[in-house]
Structure formats: structure tokens, C-alpha cells
């Protein structure tokens, strides 16, 4: 966790390390607000460090560390409102926003920081893989509400496909990572383990990215996160016609609910997906998934692995 504690000024660093001693494992977020005590969020609880109130100087220090003393290089990040640091951790930024012609130009005064600890769950998709493979990988749609582990699962699927499992040899995988969540790339270098045969198009709009990837990298499997828009769906159909296997995730609570969504509806009607994986969060840290086939028959139900309980 050195990549996180190095961000803080010495004074805060010591205290935070003290407060966390052996709880790094369960830590999810560190939240800093100017003139407010630091907040730590764990898997099951949260607490305020009342003795630790960051002031302006601390914020300047942290931001200097985040930007390598070069804030001028963070134009993009200051517009998007988040940045990825070494190790795939994410830092969310908020504060006073500067606008130009009505669109956000940059966050000028950063007064709120949210450091989200990234934890790759190796093996989350272990039990799932046999259901996605039958004489080759099958087009799969992963459905889940926010915070049910969609991205975690899709990341692990990517890793397993591109490094192979049991008797199945590794495949070329192309990842379109529009929100830099799957690979958490910094300057194009993935911070998570995605296997040996994975190519990542980082921060690229999905619709264009899929076509670019097919043209340039000839992937056997395409991985896409959070489809939804009409354009995405069109590009997805295009990709399927190009003979590429697509595994993608979508926001949703149930298959029935998905059928009512205009964009996704078209996809379902065409019957192009052979497998559906529906995710549920039973309780904190208890993630389960149900697998359906193209006729919406229930194939299997399992707990996601890789989570400590």
C-alpha cells in the first residue's frame, strides 16, 4: 500500500498508517475533505479520524504527489474528475469547477478527494468459465446492479481467457476500456493483471473502439464494459458479424427489466447472446451469480470466489 501512503504528507502518513495497521485488507476508500476529519471506509463500517484534519497545505502536497509536481499535465484528469494512480487505485476529485462555453474545463480548487483502493480479485470467475465455453467462447452478457462486481468479474474473465485455463489455450483478447476500470491503465499501461494476450484500448468510446480494435488488433474475444447507448449496440452487432466473440456487461437488475430497455432490447431480440450472467450482492462481500442460456434457462448458481469473508 506504499503507493497510497506515499501521497500523504509525513504528519498524515504516520497517523493513517497507525490507524490502519492491519486493516489495509478491508479498506475500501480514504476520503479527504478540506477542514474536515479524514474518513476511512471499510468493508463493513466507516470511521472518522477526528485528530486528522487536512488543511490547504496538505491538499497542495497530495495534489503535487498525484501529479508528479506537474499539475499542468493533468488537464484531462481535472476535466474528468478522476485519475488513476500506480496500482490501479482511483482518486476522485471534486471542488470548484471552471467552465468554458458551458462545458467543464477543469476543477480549479480541489477540496475533496476520494482515494478508492483497487483490489483485483484473482479467481472471481473461476467457476464461471466452463459455462462460457462450448466449442469456443460464447457471446455473454453480464447483468448486474451497481456494486455487484460486474467489473471485477469481467476483469477476471479477461485474465483467464487470455492466459488460458485447464486444457483450453489462451486467446487474443481486446478490451475496450472506456472508463479505465477494467485495466486501470496509466498512460496506456494496464495496472491490473489481464493476462498475456490482452490488448487494451484505454479511455476510448466503446462504439469506435470496438471497430478500431477489430480492424487493427484482430482479437478473438472482445471485452466491453457497460454497454447501453444505441451506438454501442450497433457497434456490437457489427463486431458480432465480424466473427468476434463479445463479452460485455450492462447495468440492470433482472433479465425482464433489460427487455424493456430500448437499446438493449434490440440485442436480446436478435438472440445473439448465448449466455447471461446475472449478478447479485447478497450481503457485503457476498457476491453471487446465476447463469442462464439463450432460452433464459437457469444453468447454474454460484458464489463469486476470491472474496475474503
Amino acid at each position, binding site marked *: 500500500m506504499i503507493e497510497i501512503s506515499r501521497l500523504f504528507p509525513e504528519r498524515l502518513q504516520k497517523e493513517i498508517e497507525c490507524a490502519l495497521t492491519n486493516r489495509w485488507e478491508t479498506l475500501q476508500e480514504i476520503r479527504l475533505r478540506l477542514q474536515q476529519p479524514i474518513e476511512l471506509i471499510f468493508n463493513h463500517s466507516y470511521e472518522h479520524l477526528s485528530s486528522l484534519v487536512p488543511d490547504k497545505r496538505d491538499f497542495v502536497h497530495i495534489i503535487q504527489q498525484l501529479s508528479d*509536481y506537474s499539475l499542468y499535465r493533468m488537464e484531462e484528469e481535472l476535466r474528468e474528475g478522476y485519475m488513476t494512480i500506480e496500482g490501479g487505485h482511483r482518486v476522485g476529485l471534486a471542488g470548484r469547477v471552471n467552465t468554458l462555453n458551458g462545458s467543464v474545463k477543469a476543477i480549479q480548487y480541489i477540496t475533496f478527494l476520494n482515494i478508492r483502493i483497487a483490489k483485483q480479485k484473482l479467481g472471481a470467475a473461476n467457476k464461471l468459465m466452463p459455462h462460457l465455453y462450448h466449442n469456443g467462447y460464447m457471446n455473454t452478457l453480464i447483468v448486474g446492479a451497481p456494486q455487484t462486481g460486474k467489473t471485477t468479474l469481467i476483469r477476471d474473465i479477461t485474465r483467464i481467457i487470455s492466459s488460458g485455463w485447464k486444457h483450453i489455450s489462451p486467446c487474443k483478447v481486446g478490451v475496450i476500456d472506456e472508463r479505465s476500470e477494467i485495466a486501470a491503465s496509466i498512460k496506456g499501461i494496464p495496472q491490473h493483471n489481464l493476462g498475456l494476450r490482452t490488448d487494451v484500448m484505454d479511455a476510448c468510446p466503446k462504439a469506435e473502439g470496438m471497430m478500431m480494435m477489430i480492424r487493427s488488433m484482430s482479437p478473438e474475444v472482445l471485452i466491453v464494459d457497460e454497454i447501453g447507448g444505441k451506438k454501442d449496440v450497433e457497434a456490437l452487432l457489427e463486431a458480432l458479424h465480424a466473427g468476434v466473440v463479445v463479452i460485455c456487461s450492462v447495468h440492470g437488475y433482472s433479465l425482464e427489466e433489460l427487455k424493456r430497455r430500448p437499446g438493449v432490447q434490440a440485442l436480446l431480440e436478435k438472440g445473439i447472446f448465448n449466455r447471461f450472467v446475472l449478478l447479485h450482492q447478497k450481503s457485503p462481500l457476498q457476491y453471487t451469480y446465476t447463469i442462464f442460456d439463450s432460452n433464459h434457462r437457469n444453468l447454474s448458481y454460484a458464489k463469486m470466489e476470491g472474496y475474503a469473508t
Partner: protein
Amino acid sequence: MIWVGAMLFIATTTWIGFEWSNRLANRPKHIRQVKNALQILEAEMMYSHLPLQDAFYTIQKQTPFPIHAFFDRLYKNMNYESKDFQVVWENSLETFMDISCLGKNEKEILLQFGQTLGKHDFLQQQKHIQLAASHLERELEAANEQYQRYGKMAKSLGVLCGVFIVLLLL
């Protein structure tokens, strides 16, 4: 014996005079070097989008002594000496002042400039660089003028002072 002492004394004052004149001649030269370095820094920031440390590395490779030493020290000590960039900048500036012929005003300009470095977006950063450059330009003019006025005088003044004191004492 007295003559030997007198000669030594005159030699010393002459040397002091030459040194003074040398400083006067070097000051505009060094200011110009700093200005050039700022220009390189601007280019590295605006066009190559390099982080400060990498920019310092490029600058120290392209500049002559003594400005080279300043950026070399910055490059080597960032993250190492202190995590606070301001401290590294100030310490490097102190060492730089010892080896260069820059005056107090230039030091103040650079000190102010250091406080803005890496804390703004492109446009602001560029403005700060240009502001520092124009301040330096003004100092450069003053330094040139000073050299024109006192440069030759400093040399002869050294010799003459020596002779004068020797004559008084003899």
C-alpha cells in the same frame, strides 16, 4: 623585503579588481543562461508535456555551467531530499547563488517563480514563465548597464587602490 610585500599587496588588490569586474561581466551572461533555461522549460511543458523532473533532466543536458548545476541538482534531489518541491527548489537556488554571479533581485525572481511551478494549468504556467522571463530581461538590462559603467573601472581601480595604499604606507 618591503618591496616584495608591496608587490604582493598590489597583486592582491589587482586580483580583487579583476574578480569584481569578472562578476560584473558574468552577471548578464548568467541571467541570459537562466532565461534560456526558462525557454527550454516552457517548450518541454507546452509541447512535450513532460513532468517537471523529466523537464529538468532535459534542461540540464542542454545548458552550460553553472545553470546546468542548478537543474542537475533539482533533477537529482526531487523526491529524494524532501517531498516538498518548494524546499528542494529553495535549497538548489541557494547552492546556485554560490556558484553563479546572480544578484539578489534575480534570486528573488527565481524564488517567486519556484512557488508557482507545477501548481497551475498550461496557460497559467506559461504566463508565470513569461513573467519571470520579463523580470529577468529587466535585470539583464540593468546588469549590462552596470557592466558598461563599472566593468573597466573595476579593473583599473584594483591596481590603483593597491598602488595608492602602498604609496601611503611607504
